[in-house]
């Protein structure tokens, strides 16, 4: 439906604060891109610039090769779902969903059939005559979705649409939104601070930090090959273990003499290891001291010390674990190396 291209987009607010440093990326037609990052990193700012709700200080924004920097939000052929849904409180669900169509000179009978269709898709048919105040949070969320899908826009924008829902509903809506997007094939930008949402929904993830892009990649790339220690510790729960280590003699060494895994180079590094990339064996080479065992049902987290540094291991429920000394091995090719000064991947 649309490809979107951001070329050195920058945002400086009126108070002089630079919320987004010059940022460029392209979104392919039909792609689901998730913008993720900690609070205040500029996700909403970026999204709102795409929507036209915030002026673009510098740079060029194009939707389908048309520069839209100064195009009215209503003329950008976008639909947005807001965190608090932003439903019109005085309109019924039917009017809420149909309002955008009404203003686009679409005949009334056509609006009605489109609204019905959207309502059916979102299980809202029974609620069309209610006001938003008479709906549950999940239903309001669906109305907000309905308002977006009914317009059949070129681009969907979502700003943390699920963060006001409880965990169970969030899980369910996550799957529904993703399925809906697949079915409609609408290019989407989805903002969230929840890395699970990012991992499960995205075709491509853009990790933002302090107004800068840290990494762009598929969920697998982001997870397995983080571009920086920031991405490594932001994505994944529990986060990647980051410990101080050293390269010598073709090995990653910790604590002076324990060889962890083969690697080329010399000097100090930050070593990143995902908690699940570790195995426990009695005859394994590395000493690990378990302090706390966290039971999570399907699996266990063992928090402890590796060469006097905090380290967490994720094991299946079938692996017995008790606090105390044990021995571990790192699975092959599971080490990420970072520059200890800049935090960038080596």
């Amino acid at each position, binding site marked *: 439906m649309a490809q979107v291209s951001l070329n050195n987009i920058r945002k400086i607010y009126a108070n002089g604060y630079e919320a987004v440093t010059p940022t460029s990326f392209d979104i392919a037609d039909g792609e689901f891109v998730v913008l993720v990052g900690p609070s205040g990193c500029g996700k909403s700012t970026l999204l709102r610039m795409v929507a036209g*709700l915030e002026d673009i200080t510098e740079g060029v924004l194009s939707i389908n090769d048309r520069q839209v920097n100064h195009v009215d939000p*209503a003329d950008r052929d976008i639909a947005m779902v807001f965190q608090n849904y*932003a439903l*019109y*409180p*005085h309109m019924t669900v039917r009017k809420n969903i149909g*309002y955008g169509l009404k*203003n686009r000179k679409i005949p009334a009978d056509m609006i009605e059939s489109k609204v019905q269709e959207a309502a059916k898709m979102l299980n809202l048919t029974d609620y069309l005559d209610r006001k938003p105040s008479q709906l549950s949070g999940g239903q309001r969320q669906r109305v907000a979705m309905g*308002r977006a899908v009914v317009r059949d826009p070129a681009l969907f924008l979502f700003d943390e649409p699920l963060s006001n829902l409880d965990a169970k509903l969030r899980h369910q809506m996550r799957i529904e939104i993703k399925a809906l997007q697949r079915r409609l094939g609408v290019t989407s930008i989805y903002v969230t601070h929840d890395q699970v949402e990012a991992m499960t929904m995205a075709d491509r993830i853009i990790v933002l930090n302090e107004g800068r892009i840290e990494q762009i990649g598929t969920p697998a790339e982001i997870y397995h090959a983080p571009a920086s220690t920031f991405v490594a510790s932001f994505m994944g729960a529990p986060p990647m273990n980051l410990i101080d280590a050293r390269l010598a003699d073709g090995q990653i060494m910790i604590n002076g003499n324990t060889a962890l895994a083969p690697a080329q180079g010399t000097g100090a590094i930050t070593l990143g290891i995902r908690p699940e990339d570790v195995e426990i064996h009695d005859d394994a080479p590395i000493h690990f001291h378990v302090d706390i065992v966290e039971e999570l049902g399907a699996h266990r987290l063992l928090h402890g010390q590796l060469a006097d540094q905090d380290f967490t291991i994720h094991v299946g429920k079938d692996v017995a674990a008790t606090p105390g000394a044990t021995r571990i091995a790192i699975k092959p090719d599971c080490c990420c190396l970072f520059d200890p000064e800049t935090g960038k991947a080596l």
Partner: protein
Amino acid sequence: MKRAGFTTTWLPILLLVPQLLIIAVFFYWPAVHALQSSFYLQDPFGFGSTYVGLENYTDLAQSSEYLKITRFTVVFTLLVTFFSLALALLLAVKADTVIRGARTYRTLLMWVYAVAPPVAGFIGLLMFNQSWGPLTDIARAIGWDFKLGVNFNDTATAMVIVSVWKQVPVNFIFFLSGLQSIPKSVREAALIDNRSASGRFWDVTFPLLAPTGFFLLIINITYALFDTFGIIDTLVKGEPGNNPMTLVYKVYVDGFRGNDLGGSSAQSVVLMVLVLALTVFQFRLVERRIHYT
């Protein structure tokens, strides 16, 4: 939500007493007194009174002058209410979009609120002064020989203008806070749904301001009916006879100038019933309909 409460019963009563006393002394007692004297014919020189039953009321109903004043009051109230609300809404909508210097702008607009009605009337007198009033000059420039206190329509116009001017700030404050309580995201959603600014105003902003607007409607009707007394008194001072006046001013003129306490009391009672009706109407409607969230 946490509820704060009193642990003893006498403390809240004690705290209420001053307020209740004030209401009793300045409202209930005079009200009862007015009701009572509306059934009597008072001697103009204060030598006793005669019971006349409903005669004061029937006199009112048959008085063509009273009917004329009623008609004027209705027109005056409608004009003042309409223009006060419309102007305030316009200013509030504009002020809401001002980003730079917003506070100064708002403060300047609110200042008029602090002007007491008689002072507002006095400023009106100056503005409409026959020989050098700036507003008289403007009127003259468009070929309107404005004669305050002489020409009935001219005086009425001045009364409306000054009353509106005095009331706009109050409405402005309420409309502005009403506008600012509309969630930003709702307006942004409208921005995406509708390209026309006036369309967005009438479809989204205006309906969401309706609760504020309705509340202000009642406040403004009450204001135009009763609180414009000071303005009218200042503007028509000296010769109320040929000049326009409202029902409230008529109560004063008959009671204190004409010494017809009985007739004046009957008029007060009529007004009290009117206020009662307005209040009931307000509560009914506020409870019933205009309420979102």
